[in-house]
């Protein structure tokens, strides 16, 4: 639905995530990231950043920000669905593509929820600094 030539906003979601919390999660559960929090494609890019920066530890770096960005955007996208009933989902049902220009792909039960809430796509913006990563996502229909 378009009003005055503009996309119609169907939902808004935000999330702020503490970078140190992400670092702790990574440090304690590196074996759980792939195919649980990150899709295979996201994990491949995450590993590539680690290899590029030659950093296996969870110190503040591009890899930590990459992980924080994915988690914050996934959470914000889930909120942006605006579903009145909470659909059961896995983190990998939401895939975050791109780096500076983010896009979001949704599958599984969340994909069905998107259809029900008339939310065919998302627009995302994210900002990370040394302490926090803030994601802002809106659901839009055209």
């Amino acid at each position, binding site marked *: 639905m378009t009003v005055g030539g503009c996309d119609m906003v169907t939902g808004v979601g935000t999330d702020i995530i503490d970078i140190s919390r*992400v670092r*702790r999660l990574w440090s304690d*559960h590196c074996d*759980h990231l792939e195919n*649980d929090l990150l899709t295979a494609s996201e994990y491949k890019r995450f590993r590539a950043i680690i290899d590029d920066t030659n950093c296996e530890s969870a110190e503040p770096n591009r890899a930590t920000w990459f992980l924080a960005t994915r988690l914050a955007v996934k*959470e914000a996208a889930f909120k942006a669905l605006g579903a009145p009933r*909470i659909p*059961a*989902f896995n983190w990998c049902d939401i895939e975050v593509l791109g780096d500076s220009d983010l896009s979001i792909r949704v599958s*599984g039960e969340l994909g069905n929820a998107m259809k029900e809430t008339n939310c065919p796509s998302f627009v995302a913006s994210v900002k990370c600094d040394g302490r926090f990563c803030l994601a802002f996502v809106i659901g839009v229909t055209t």
Partner: protein
Amino acid sequence: MTNLPAREQIIEAIRRAVSEALLIPQDQVIPSARLVSDLKAESIDVADIRFRIEDGLKIRIDQREMMVALGENLTAEELNNSFTVQFVIDYVTEKLTQGARG
């Protein structure tokens, strides 16, 4: 068929997982505590708790499956009220029992 941990071991493992993930004393992790509303767990914390339980009890917990067990078509408030430490204990015990049978 594998050996099922004693109920006390399961409870202890879950209380430890919640305590370590949320950085709170274990005496706050009582069965009636709601993970989100009372213990202030964020979604990243819930993932952390799940991973600690998986590692501690050698099981696999699928988040979607666990959410379905909480109840389908719940509002956010209903879900938060149902998502207690006791629910996690019962859910994990059932998973382990199924695994021991299988």
